[in-house]
């Protein structure tokens, strides 16, 4: 009997224990943020989007086209070295790169970020109740825009890439995860469709740094113009290989006009919603301010920086000499070849002798305001100090410029120096701002970059990680240039001329009477200088291997002639003596080796890799 009681007690304790146990554990984990916490409020979605925007492949001040020390390119480990600029391998500038060091890319492969966007697109429709249907659609449009932006960065590097639009399950069979490359035309079509969705779904306006429908249209003009050029020029100048015969790189020439039409139509959509910055009657100051004033109606899509959030860049400190900054190191300098896109400088008389100038600054007389606002010439002023750029001294100078430049350095009668403090007859041989050939920190070409330089910053605050002016990734001038180029490709030269002359009028240049492709391209190179566009332009026009065929570039060397008390300027090879050679295979970058190892379906690799 006693044992039955014991049994009953034991059973009832057992039953009581099992029925009450394991209940408290069945709750949502409190230390993990689940999708419904993020996506059920607009603030949550914004925080999720902020991360995607932050990783967006914007080729801004900090972009390192060679990847940089960490090899990541877009968020490099040494973000202060802003002079590692794509313009410094293409002849816009010369500088830190020893040659064509960026042709092979840095293995950019942002499928992690694309997965984040895919997850957003998959989740958003489940939260229509909390966010409202209109908001969900607007956010979806933004997500499609962002996805297109990532794929554009891939397509212009690799051609056709795997188009992944769903959130892959890591547990899925390997064959499902090893996605094949898509054809190049399919990749561009996808980008065009995504931007079209963005245009349809997004609202008309947005806060600075975020997309709206006209942002999507502007990027559609950029991307479709790129695709059209691949079709048109890539089918003439190409490298043969398995990837090409499979359609993974290269587009049928017959599709070119379709892309150009899309580019033109998209550019036209932006008209009336943004406009060129034109607030100051002083054309030079106006063009300078166009890159610095936050109220510019020209800014379509920008990236912002702040010292407080540790995201500030170093443009001011890495494009001006220490003389005009608190602490700086510059290393990339505009070439005379770039300056001569605007006009031939009047530095030589008709008899071949160098023209004499009373003041250094006189070289700027009569030049296009946009050029003076893009490049600091010898004699220009920044923060109250003059660019006293001087290569050296001549006691006296006779003969022609050409004969003097052709001489071997040892045979020349000039005085040059590697130290700003060296004197000759009581006079500095070189200026505080150069030109010396030892060390990189003073100009090697006679010029310094002016675009984006915040001239109003007090000298003692110009330091590394102290520049906050936003990067304008898309501005209305580019939309006009895209429109002009697409229009001309489609045979509509009247529209092209109107667009180009709008840009020239703002630039303070004379209006063109007629138009051709060379003029349109030259206008683009002048207007978008130092904005990381020229490298891609050379690639899509398929002229990089011609323009950069063991190319060397020139500088403008000012000398002071003592007995005449005058300055002369000689056009000489830039003093780095760099050689730039673009191999045809660089029109596409190689698929990253690590990815090829993980996914054999990415083969064939691009031609000649």
């Amino acid at each position: 009997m006693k044992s039955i009681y014991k049994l009953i007690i034991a059973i009832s304790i057992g039953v009581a224990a099992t029925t009450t146990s394991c209940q408290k554990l069945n709750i949502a984990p409190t230390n993990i943020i689940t999708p419904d916490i993020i996506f059920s409020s607009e603030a949550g979605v914004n925080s999720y989007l902020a991360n995607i925007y932050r990783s967006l492949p914007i080729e801004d001040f900090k972009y390192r086209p060679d990847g940089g020390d960490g090899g990541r390119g877009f968020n490099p480990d040494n973000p202060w070295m802003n002079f590692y600029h794509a313009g410094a391998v293409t002849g816009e500038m010369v500088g830190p790169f020893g040659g064509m060091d960026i042709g092979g890319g840095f293995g950019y492969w942002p499928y992690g970020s694309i997965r984040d966007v895919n997850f957003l697109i998959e989740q958003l429709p489940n939260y229509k109740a909390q966010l409202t249907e209109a908001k969900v659609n607007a956010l979806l449009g933004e997500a499609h825009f962002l996805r297109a932006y990532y794929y554009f960065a891939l397509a212009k590097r690799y051609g056709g890439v795997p188009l992944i639009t769903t959130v892959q399950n890591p547990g899925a069979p390997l064959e499902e995860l090893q996605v094949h490359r898509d054809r190049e035309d399919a990749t561009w079509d996808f980008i065009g469709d995504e931007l079209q969705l963005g245009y349809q779904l997004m609202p008309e306006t947005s806060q600075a740094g975020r997309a709206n429908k006209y942002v999507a249209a502007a990027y559609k003009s950029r991307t479709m113009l790129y695709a059209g050029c691949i079709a048109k020029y890539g089918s003439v100048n190409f490298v043969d290989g398995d990837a090409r015969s499979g359609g993974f790189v290269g587009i049928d020439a017959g599709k070119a006009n379709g892309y150009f039409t899309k580019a033109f139509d998209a550019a036209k959509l932006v008209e009336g919603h943004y406009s060129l910055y034109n607030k100051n009657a002083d054309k030079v100051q106006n063009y300078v301010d166009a890159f610095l004033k936050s109220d510019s109606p020209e800014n379509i899509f920008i990236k912002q920086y702040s010292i407080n959030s540790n995201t500030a860049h170093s443009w001011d400190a890495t494009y001006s000499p220490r003389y005009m900054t608190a602490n700086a190191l510059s290393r990339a300098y505009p070439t005379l070849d770039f300056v001569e896109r605007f006009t031939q400088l009047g530095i030589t008389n008709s008899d071949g002798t160098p023209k004499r100038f009373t003041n250094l600054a006189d070289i700027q007389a009569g030049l296009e305001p946009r050029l003076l606002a893009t490049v600091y010439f010898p004699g220009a002023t920044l923060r109250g100090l003059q660019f006293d750029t001087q290569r050296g001294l001549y006691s006296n100078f006779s003969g022609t410029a050409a004969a003097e430049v052709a001489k071997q350095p040892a045979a020349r009668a000039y005085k040059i120096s590697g130290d700003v403090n060296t004197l000759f007859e009581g006079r500095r041989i070189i200026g505080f701002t150069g030109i010396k050939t030892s060390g990189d920190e003073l100009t090697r070409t006679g010029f310094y970059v002016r675009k984006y330089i915040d001239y109003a910053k007090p000298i003692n605050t110009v330091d590394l990680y102290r520049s906050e002016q936003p990067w304008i990734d898309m501005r209305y001038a580019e939309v006009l240039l895209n429109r002009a180029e697409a229009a001309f490709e489609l045979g509509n030269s009247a529209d092209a001329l109107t667009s180009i002359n709008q840009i020239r009028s703002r630039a303070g240049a004379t209006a063109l009477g007629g138009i051709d492709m060379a003029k349109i391209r030259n206008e683009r190179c002048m207007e978008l200088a130092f904005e990381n566009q020229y490298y891609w332009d050379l690639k899509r026009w398929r002229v990089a291997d011609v323009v950069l065929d063991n190319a060397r570039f020139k500088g403008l060397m000012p000398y002071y002639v003592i007995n005449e008390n005058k300055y002369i300027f000689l056009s000489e090879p830039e003093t780095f003596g760099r050689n730039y050679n673009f191999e045809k295979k660089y029109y596409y970058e190689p698929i990253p080796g690590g990815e090829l190892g993980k996914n054999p379906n990415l083969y064939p690799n691009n031609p000649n890799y």
Partner: protein
Amino acid sequence: MKQLISRVLLGVCVLAASACTKIDNYDAPDASFEGRLIDATTHANFLTSQNSIQVRMEQVSWSATPTPQEIPSKFDGTFKDTKLFKGTYRIIPKGGAFWPIYDSVRVDITKGSSHDFELTPYITIKNFTQSLVGTTLTLKFDIDAPIPAGLPTIIDAQPYVNTTKLVGAGASIRDYSETKAVVINKEFIDMSMADKSITLTIPNLISGRKFFVRVGVRLNDSFKSSNFSEIVEVDVP
């Protein structure tokens, strides 16, 4: 205490003896591959340079999608690599100024493997003569194409001058070489007989030096590669 030390030592010995027993049993790269690149028009070795022909090899016995490796050709038109892994390779020469080969060969590479490739040059350089007057060197030559139809555009012709006999693309004195190039930019079939007879002039060579000189004709193919002449010695008195 003594006992403890000897026990510890015993333990160390046991661990030491049992460690490192896994040895790498994969054969060291002791296979080799060499051969000649033969000019199909002359049956002599192909005249090449550095930065020119590469023998591209893919070890298909290792992977279906192997990472390619390349053996650069030597200046004398031969190639050799003695540190290869044994296996089956898919091999194709590329990068030089010859009509592309589309069918790669498969070779089982072991110690002492060899294979010669016959290549048809885009351009052959004939009647190459040089004459030195004072310090000015004049180089004359004619160009011919074994297969004129479909030949890539001829970009330019240039001399290559160096102080060693390793002279060619990327191994020359710029002021005597690249800057003395003559731009052509024509299709071979559009060139007249006079166009095909090319003269290059190099003034101001340094007296008392010996130079090694050759000429090259560059074509606008995928590699922008050049056909080269033989190398001659020039003594500047």
